[in-house]
């Protein structure tokens, strides 16, 4: 049997789901030597590695390209930000957020590009958070900065449940930590006469308590059944 024929036979057999041992037995029974069979397997592995390397290279180049395009867009927006009207700024933030979420959902659910889809959903949540602070700055909304993180956390949690995305839950965690760290530092200043809750809605804090509790409870219900005995 020629080398190329052996390679093709092995590839066909692997596609059919045969194990390496079975292929070895069949080729040995046909009179092929072990060295020839091993050589054919090595050729297939080398070819696959080359294809993987090519795919990886293309993926890296495309990712760098996407990042550079993204940086270019952000640079353009940043350079012209001051000249834009408030309506235009709000529209850019809202459209970018919706586009990210929509794109992420389509990529993940319809076209089965799970990782890219998750990345876009995460980007949408980050744009949402950045939008809260930008809009507060644009309209000179007075408030304690931890409130922004609470709103960001709650929105991310809601989106995480809607999109069934763990990456959004993982984003909500450090955002929540930032909000929690912000309040005690304000409370400590209360001993010096400063009122840390002057600009904060107490009801926002109450809603945050309820939302985080419900989120924890719902996640607890989703724990796999085989782990239930440990709870």
């Amino acid at each position: 049997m020629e080398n190329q024929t052996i390679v093709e036979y092995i590839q066909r057999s692997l596609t059919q789901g045969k194990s390496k041992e079975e292929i070895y037995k069949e080729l040995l029974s046909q009179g092929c030597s072990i060295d020839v069979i091993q050589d054919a397997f090595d050729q297939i592995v080398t070819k696959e590695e080359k294809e993987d390397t090519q795919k990886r290279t293309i993926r890296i180049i495309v990712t760098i390209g996407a990042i550079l395009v993204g940086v270019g867009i952000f640079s353009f927006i940043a350079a012209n930000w001051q000249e834009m009207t408030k309506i235009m700024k709000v529209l850019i933030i809202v459209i970018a957020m919706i586009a990210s979420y929509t794109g992420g959902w389509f990529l993940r659910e319809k076209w089965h590009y799970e990782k890219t889809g998750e990345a876009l959903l995460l980007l949408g949540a980050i744009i949402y958070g950045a939008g809260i602070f930008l809009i507060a700055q644009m309209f000179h909304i007075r408030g304690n900065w931890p409130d922004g993180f609470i709103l960001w956390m709650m929105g991310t949690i809601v989106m995480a449940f809607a999109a069934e995305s763990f990456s959004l839950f993982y984003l909500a965690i450090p955002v929540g930590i930032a909000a929690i760290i912000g309040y005690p530092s304000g409370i400590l200043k209360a001993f010096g006469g400063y009122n840390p809750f002057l600009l904060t809605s107490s009801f926002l804090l109450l809603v945050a308590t309820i939302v985080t509790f419900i989120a924890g409870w719902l996640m607890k219900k989703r724990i796999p059944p085989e782990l239930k005995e440990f709870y």
Partner: protein
Amino acid sequence: MDIFYDLLPYLIGLLIIGIVYLIIYVVREGVKEKDWYLQSFLSKEDTVSQFFFLFSVFFLGITISAFNKDLGDPLSWRTILLFTSIVGVVIAYYFKVIYTLTVSLIGLAAWWGLQAAEWAQGKDIKGAALFTGLLFIVTIFYLLGRAHEKEIKFKRVSIVYSMLGLIPITGALSTLSTGFGLKILEEITKGSSFFSSWEITFFLFVFIAFIIGLLIYTLNKKLIFKQEALIICLLTLLFVIIALLPEQTIFLKTQDYFLYYRDVDLSKIGIFWATILKYFSFN
């Protein structure tokens, strides 16, 4: 009492180190294949739910503080800490969330320390009483850790209690056996007896009753070794003695050129205490 506030940052630092140690221990050390369920997070859902329950407890405390401020401060911040910690413990037990339990137990211990300091205000009660009370609390935690070991669903809870008990006791004994620690011991024995405050007296007796009750329970259920129970009894006795100690002169003092007193060497009492504390910290 000022010595207590001076010590507070070190105590908090010890507790933080203890929490870090607990996390490292649970996640990495001693978790064999068959004990995989003792990890701090069992699944993605568990990870997320633990954090959110912890956040809900923190936000509860902050929310009550905010409403308290709006209503003109009817509650003290210590009461808010106590209430939040109790709610945290209830949530932790119901949902088996160990990080909420850890933070809530630390909150309870912190409440007692701060409230006892408040009760001692103006009565010049020695710091040894508060120190002993905190040591009683961590001893109770250790015994509760042993008591929870039986059921598989409480195994992780048991580890939390055990670590919150073991690390502070070890840290306290190790610190006290050093020169700095002996100086602290000298300072905290200054002042009047804790019997001047009925609240502190009441709580100390309640803690002792708890320790005795838990020792009897764990011995009956064979959850603790007899030698271990004996060591806990000896430690409790040591803590009681520290609380009842009259003022100790642990260091011999001499006056320097500027007429300030400075420590020269250990007195006989100082050598005695150094020996006792070194023995306990190594054993």
